[in-house]
């Protein structure tokens, strides 16, 4: 007679070492795990609440400048190094890991208007109110050497901005016109003008490196082609654009920070309508910088706050402010896309987390899985009113809060007026213009 026995293989339940996780047999029968939607909803709600609890984005403040910080630059090869120029002509180089200033140079008389690093990270350029362009070594002077620029170019007019080419020994300055310089020469190899107003900022396209964008104080944004040595197109907006920034992942997309409290994302091939209008600031937007992933950008505003916008949303996902932070003049997103730096009027550079509630440092795999799951849950239930309300809640300074209310009222009034105008005029005589088109005054070929 054959005897059947129950037998178990210990391999299936005994772990090899103590450090292994206990193997837990699971039964995925849905009847054993009821109420999946309510349970996940509760989890999502908790995750959202915890996110708000842990949202502490402020990391450090780098103080030492003796005047407002006017410009910032990232080091292209080192994440820990940041350069900043102040309104008193001082340039400082900071080490972010130590949170200390490692070098300071009295670079210019008057403002340091612009600062940019060379693509290889060995030197950097500054322009100032003293009509000079100076090239500096990134490393400090060796022992016994004096602190001196590598090259100094004396110009005829004030330069208001500078940007370096992403691959070659070429840089561009702006002032009365856009000049393109070879590093080896003391005169520009090419200068391009279109109109007569002063140009406030010039930026090279990081992908198609021969493209440049500039914005002038006569409310326009001009695009140039360096290879053909000609401007390409000009778009005139309602108000002045302070600076532009190219998307580092999408060659034809750039975002302009405007005086009318908004940011405009353009496709450079179709300038007559912005792709997206980003609005939330309550005062002029002074600077903008893209995350290196090209999915978000950060903007600095005169309203003493910085905001983070997803590129495809018109509303910001985050607003950072502190009691002591004054008008934010410049902002940069670090090249590992984890941090944001902003330089403000009250002489400080502040370091923020790009994701307010992110845990810094190394995560264990279980922590990582949990954060991923929580993130996905928040996304899944983001439309539910309770969760939406909690995740959108931000504390704002009273000035910003009241201005938002005020502007809401103004906007509503404008809308009502337009509606009334349409209602009381002959049908068809008053055309509704879309909000996007309204902001673009003209496109000049």
């Amino acid at each position: 007679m054959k005897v059947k026995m129950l037998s178990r293989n210990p391999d299936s339940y005994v772990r090899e070492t103590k450090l292994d996780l206990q193997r837990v047999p699971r039964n995925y029968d849905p009847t054993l795990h009821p109420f999946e939607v309510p349970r996940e909803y509760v989890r999502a709600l908790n995750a959202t609440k915890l996110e708000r609890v842990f949202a502490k984005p402020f990391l450090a403040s780098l103080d030492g400048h003796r005047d407002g910080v006017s410009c910032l630059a990232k080091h292209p090869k080192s994440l820990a190094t940041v350069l900043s120029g102040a309104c008193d002509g001082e340039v400082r180089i900071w080490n972010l890991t130590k949170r200390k200033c490692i070098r300071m140079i009295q670079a210019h008389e008057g403002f340091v208007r612009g600062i940019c690093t060379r693509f290889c990270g060995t030197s950097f350029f500054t322009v100032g109110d003293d009509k000079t362009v100076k090239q500096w070594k990134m490393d400090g002077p060796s022992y016994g050497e004096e602190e001196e620029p590598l090259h100094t170019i004396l110009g005829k007019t004030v330069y208001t901005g500078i940007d370096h080419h992403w691959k070659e020994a070429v840089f561009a300055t702006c002032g009365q016109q856009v000049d393109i310089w070879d590093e080896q020469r003391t005169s520009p190899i090419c200068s391009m003008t279109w109109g007569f107003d002063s140009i406030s900022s010039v930026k090279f396209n990081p992908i198609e490196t021969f493209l440049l964008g500039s914005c002038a104080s006569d409310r326009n944004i001009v695009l140039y082609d360096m290879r053909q040595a000609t401007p390409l197109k000009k778009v005139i907006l309602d108000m002045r654009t302070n600076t532009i920034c190219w998307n580092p992942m999408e060659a034809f997309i750039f975002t302009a920070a405007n005086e009318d409290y908004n940011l405009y994302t353009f496709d450079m091939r179709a300038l007559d309508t912005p792709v997206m209008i980003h609005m939330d600031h309550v005062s002029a937007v002074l600077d903008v910088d893209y995350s290196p992933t090209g999915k978000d950008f950060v903007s600095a505003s005169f309203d003493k706050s910085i905001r983070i916008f997803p590129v495809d949303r018109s509303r910001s996902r985050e607003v950072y402010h502190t009691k002591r932070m004054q008008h934010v003049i410049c902002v940069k997103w670090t090249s590992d896309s984890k941090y944001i730096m902003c330089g403000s009027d009250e002489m400080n550079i502040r370091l923020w987390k790009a994701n307010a509630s992110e845990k810094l440092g190394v995560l264990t795999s279980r922590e990582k899985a949990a954060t991923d799951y929580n993130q996905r849950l928040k996304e899944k239930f983001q439309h539910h009113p309770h969760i939406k309300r909690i995740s959108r809640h931000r504390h704002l300074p009273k000035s910003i809060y009241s201005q938002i209310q005020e502007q809401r009222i103004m906007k509503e009034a404008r809308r009502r007026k337009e509606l009334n105008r349409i209602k009381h005029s002959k049908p068809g005589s008053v055309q509704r213009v879309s909000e996007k088109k309204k902001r673009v005054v003209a496109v000049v070929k």
Partner: protein
Amino acid sequence: MSSSRAAESLLALNQQEELEDLPREYPLSTSEDEGDSDGERKHQKLLEAISSLDGKNRWKLAERSEASLKVSEFSVSSEGSGEKLVLSDLLEPVKTSSSLAAVKKQLNRVKSKKTVELPLHREEIERIHREVAFNKTSQVLSKWDPVVQKNRQAEQLVFPLSKQQSIFAPIEHVVSGWKARTPLEQEIFNLLHKNKQPVTDPLLTPMEKASLKAMSLEEVKMRRAELQRARALQSYYEARARREKKIKSKKYHKLLKKGKAKQALKEFEKLRKVNPAAALEELEKLEKARMMERMSLKHQNSGKWAKSKAVMAKYDLEARQAMQEQLARNKELMQKIQAASESAEEEGGAEEEGEPFVPDVVNEVQVKADTPNPWMFRNHSGDTKEAEVQGDPEELAEPAAQEAPESEEEGPVVAEEILLKEFKERRSLRQKSRLNQIAKPVGSQEAKDLSSQEVLSELRALSQKLNRESHQSRKQELSSTRTVLAVQREEPAGEEEEPLLLQRPERARTLDELEELGKKGCFQNKELPRVAVEGQQLERNPSNHLGVPKEKKRKEQMIDLQNLLTTKSPSMKSLAVPTTVEELEDEERDQRQMIKEAFAGDDVIRDFLKEKREAVEASKPKDVDLTLPGWGEWGGVGLKPSAKKRRRFLVKAPEGPPRKDKNLPNVILNEKRNIHAVAHQVRMLPYPFTHHQQFERTIQTPIGSTWNTQRSFQKLTMPKVVTKPGHIIKPIKAEDVGYRSSSRSDLSVVQRNPKRLSIRHKKQLKKISVD
């Protein structure tokens, strides 16, 4: 558009340049002509000037006399006058040749041209340049479109995009690049040097260097794959060769040989055209083969096989043929081959003679192959097939034609037959049921009456139907080929129609009877035939059952729906009772009744109505009773406030608004909203979703590890953007996505461009100023 305009403007510029050149050319040419006679002319001019000093003859032109050798500006030059006159010169046709012809011609040319357009403004030109440049740039940029789209829609993006290969830098390299600068550093350095630290040791052993220089992993992988492939191919070819070698079939080998011969011939032909020298070598080879053949006795019909065949040849045709073939082969091999010729004629000859190169066998085979080769049959078989195909329609047509008249005649006939059959069947069924009824001794008289009435009604319906069908068939006579199908199709339609036709008179009757008989209280007998008929009807068309309430509603709108709902259920019950008593053979009917029995207990409709009534009651606003027991009278256990008092203190609630489901008998609308749930419910359909079901489905699929396996959990919770901590993310590059980045550097282009531009600008400016 803009580019074409730009082109036009450029063309205009070019034209202008040409025109500018014209006047310059002419003076130059004239001055050359006058070159050597310049002195004389000056002298002449001087003389003229002197002579004209008197004032009278100021503008007198120089007169020409034959004798003088001098040349004036606008007359024929006397050059060549020293030469001898040749007769041929005189014989030339008379021409109206004058030195002004060239000028005239040029003048005409200038006149024929229109006035030159004004060059464009500088702004205009710049605008055109800008437009052209913009178009070019946007074209360059549009190559990024697919990449951008892909990245936007990507499930997951991992940054940095390009994986950096870790570079192995030995510590010695790093150290050698570094120099001690500060005194402290120098001191330390000196100390280290004293101790002979391995700062300047041989950096790498040869082995290490070799290992560093070795192939990268990818290269190794590629190389390995290549080798593997080569090996596989080799083994495959080997196997094939072995297999082919094993084949014993003579025919196969013969064919193979012939094929090879053909191939060789073709190659030789090609070679002769391309490379005559190599062809000659080939020829020599052939020559050698001939020599070998002459030496050997291989194809001389002297071998063992040949002798045996020779015996057989007398009787066997094949053997004879084989022998002949061999001889032919011998002949062919023995034939002297002529060297490839040089001249074209000889080549032609060679070609003609080259034909014998083609072994006769080949030709023979072709001739032979004509018959057994299936491909050669194609025409023939194709014809037959075509014939078949052609035949088919005929055949098809024939039956169709046969059928057509048949259907024309039979169509109605068949229909009639079918109907008659049905009728018969039905009748037999009814007879059976009647038998059953007879077995039951209750109210047979009335039943009979009823059944006879039914028969009558059915007959009436049948006649109607027949009439209609004959009508239809008359219509269909035109489309004769399709009638058969049509009839077939019509049958079910007819069947569908039939019950409807049957029902009407009957239902009216049954309803009337129901009303009458309901009072009498003897349902059963009246119901029975109806059940029978209905059963049949239901067998064919169950949906017909649903038509009952509708028709009722249509006919008698006086009947309340609720009443109807309530009255229907008892009738069902009453149906159920007699059928249990009956012994029906029909199984289907049995089944139906079983279902009825099974659900006899739970009266869903009544329950529903009760529920609704309760809901209505509950939603009604309640009266408030404000009576206080014991006030103004005695109170205590068992004592109730007086009716008068109660009436006085009762606050009547106002009538609420009418319920929304007042007129919907089979619906309960809950008008109360759950406030607690609202906070957690999505009010509007969120943006990317187009239908609420989509959204609900995404919400209903859980993503947690409680409901999903580990793998799917990981996949579901995959983050959209992954970045590596401490890694610099560089802007996307053309090489990252497989595009070729422009090889020229931007700088070189810029340095070349401004010059060109400036020259052009200067030119344009000049022209503008000139004009």
